[in-house]
């Protein structure tokens, strides 16, 4: 084999060309991995809102809390199921909740749709991932709200001790909570018995139940489906939230991957230009290698490896660049929940590997024709050059 350091040093010898090409490949890999990280970020932001022991019950046919209408009568009946876990005080962990999108003014004069969640006394206990980081829980029977951490500062008055105004009423902020990055962080929570009347919504959107274990959960879901008293659809909480992410994540993935594909064509051409130049500039060297006894195949492999190195360098650069976007966060409207969600670029080892493979593949593809040309050179012509 022709030693690898011959390739790496030859690339280094033409630093400008190599650098520009690696940068181009890197940008493509950057877009590619950023898109995957983003789609993954949306999914994990929404999906991490779910606890596997929790069950969300919606009206039959509804896909989202926003559209669902559940009678209040269901609450008591569901709470008496044997699989339902109990709070420290011995109350069943069941809550009737109502979700209403609220239009809040933003600092920049525009508006955001924020989901307000009307909660029951056990809503916090049902979701151990939701933890207050400041202030206290809103008291039942009052207009007090707790803000998801993502909402702090998003609207005038959206901070601890501040006051929000919507539905012609005032809502003092008494607490701020996190939800391990889940969608609840983009919500505001308030007593359902205050939120419902404010929006003239006597019913509930959903009933949330915490079961004793995942087995109990499955038994509970089965029980609800078989019980003719209910026309409800039961889903585990993670499943429910994962469904809410599909449209937006698909949109970003499809668009992003399509764009990455087009970009990659450009970058492969760029790599090809560079590798053709590398071969052209080193014809004499390649001829000598052949004269000394290296086979055509070795020359082919050498040039291919060189272009793969070029691509891998682009891959590393792009992946590192994409990793640097971790601190960025994006807020946008989720069409499915009609509310603003916050998410970030979430890398996974799989995405990083894919980025490196993608970069290497682009480089190798770009080197294919130049490598074939190099291996087909006649030794004598090459030595004469």
């Amino acid at each position, binding site marked *: 084999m022709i030693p690898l350091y011959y390739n790496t040093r030859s690339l280094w010898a033409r630093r400008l*060309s190599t650098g*520009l*090409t690696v*940068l*181009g490949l890197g*940008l*493509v890999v*950057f*877009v590619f991995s950023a898109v995957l990280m*983003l789609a993954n970020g949306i999914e994990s932001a929404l999906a991490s809102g779910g606890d596997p022991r929790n069950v969300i019950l919606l*009206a*039959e*046919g*509804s*896909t*989202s809390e*926003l*559209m*669902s*209408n559940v009678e209040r009568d269901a609450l008591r009946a569901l709470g008496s199921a044997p699989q339902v876990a109990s709070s420290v005080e011995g109350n069943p962990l069941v809550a009737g909740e109502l979700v*209403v*999108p*609220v*239009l809040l003014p933003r600092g920049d004069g*525009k*508006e*955001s*749709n924020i989901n307000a969640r009307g909660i029951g006394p056990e809503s916090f206990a049902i979701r151990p991932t939701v933890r207050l980081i400041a202030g206290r829980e809103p008291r039942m029977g009052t207009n007090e709200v707790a803000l998801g951490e993502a909402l702090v500062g998003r609207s005038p008055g959206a901070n601890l001790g501040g006051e929000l105004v919507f*539905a*012609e009423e005032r809502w003092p902020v008494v607490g701020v909570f996190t939800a391990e990055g889940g969608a609840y962080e983009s919500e505001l929570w308030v007593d359902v018995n205050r939120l419902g009347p*404010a*929006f*003239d*919504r*006597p019913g509930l959107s959903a009933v949330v139940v915490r079961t004793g274990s995942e087995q109990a959960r499955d038994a509970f879901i089965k029980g609800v489906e078989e019980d003719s008293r209910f*026309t409800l659809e039961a889903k585990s909480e993670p499943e429910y939230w994962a469904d809410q992410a*599909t*449209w937006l994540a698909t949109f*970003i993935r*499809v*668009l992003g991957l399509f*764009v990455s594909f*087009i*970009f990659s*064509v*450009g*970058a492969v*051409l*760029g790599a090809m*230009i*560079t590798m*053709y*130049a590398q071969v052209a*500039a080193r014809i004499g060297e390649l001829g000598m290698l052949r004269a000394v006894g290296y086979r055509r195949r070795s020359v082919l492999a050498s040039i291919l490896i060189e272009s793969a190195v070029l691509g891998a360098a682009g891959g590393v650069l792009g992946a590192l660049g994409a990793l640097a976007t971790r601190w960025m966060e*994006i*807020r*946008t*409207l989720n069409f499915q929940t*009609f509310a*603003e969600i916050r998410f970030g670029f979430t890398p996974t080892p799989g995405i990083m590997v894919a980025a490196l493979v993608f970069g290497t593949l682009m480089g190798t593809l770009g080197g294919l024709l130049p490598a074939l040309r190099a291996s087909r050179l006649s030794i004598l012509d090459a030595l004469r050059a």
Partner: protein
Amino acid sequence: MTFGRLVWKDLLRNPLRLVLTVLAGAVGVMAFIFLRTVVDLFYSSAESAQADRLFTRAKASITADLPLSYLPRISTVPGVDDITFYGFFGGRYGDSQRDFFGSAFVDPPSFMRVFDELVVAPREVAAFQADPCGALIGKELAKRYGWKSGDRVTLQGTIYPGEWTFNVRGIYDVRTGSLDTNSLFFPYRCLNEKLPDERKDRVGAFMVRVEDPSRSAAVSSAVDAMFANSPYPTRTESERAATLGFISMLSAIITAVQVVATVILLIILLVIGNTLAMSVRERTRDLSTLRAMGFKSGRVVMLVLFESLAIGLCSGGLGVLIAPPLVRGFVAVVGSQMGGLPADFMREGTLVLGVLAAVGVSLLAGIIPAWRAVRIPVAEGLRKVA
């Protein structure tokens, strides 16, 4: 031998490289046009929104509804020419996300009056208005499922529980405007009669046509003022403002697409810059010879920049040629998964922007190579072997 001919000859020194560079540039221009078109797509509904139409909904929340009893009161507001209403039904057809399409209940006669951009055969209009559970469906939607007049369509209610069956009575197209042709409309009566009392006679929004579009703002305030102290305060905006408000909530996505469009310009910059850098490097001696003969540095810089410009123009031209079929292909493949996209949205302005971007980027790409060409002293350049 003219200056132009010198540029031409230099370009053709390495035809393979020229072709590859132009191809890469064209691919970039194409991607740029594609992304700009996606951005245009977001704004297109806002631009085509009717100026003389107002949109009145509950102030509290997008999903909150309003009592139907507001309709006669709004009609009395001075300047209101006509009024209709609609309610989001959100029916589900099939289980997968790609089967989703918009469905809403309307009052057929007034709906057809206020949305006069709808094109429906007169015979079908009559049939739609006569059937209490008739449905008017969009052209794209009809094509997607092969539905025609007389077919029965059953939707699973998401907001209104149960299964709802409608008879297709007509197929509409739109002349222009914000309505897509992927929706299903049916008469209010069909739903209202089967609802429990507390959900009866509630609508999602009122659409008001004003006599004089320039008085839209005044009419809007008058409507909102009328209900300010009622249990259901309203919020009235022009159709355009409502759409723009919706788009602003998506601004992060639009920004992301714009960032990516800028990235593609950077990639083109790198590819063209690389080619020129190579070509200058290989011609160090030739260019030094020109300078030795008396060519001024500025001339040599021009030579390189003209080459760059030529590559940019070729890339831009080729990109503009291949972009429209690509975008159409993408929409054909993906559009239906996204709930339908309008068929014709490619704009001349975007194509022109693509060419301008290519030209600008190519000139930028030529700067460093041109500088390198005149940087080394003539005597040293003359000795350089490639």
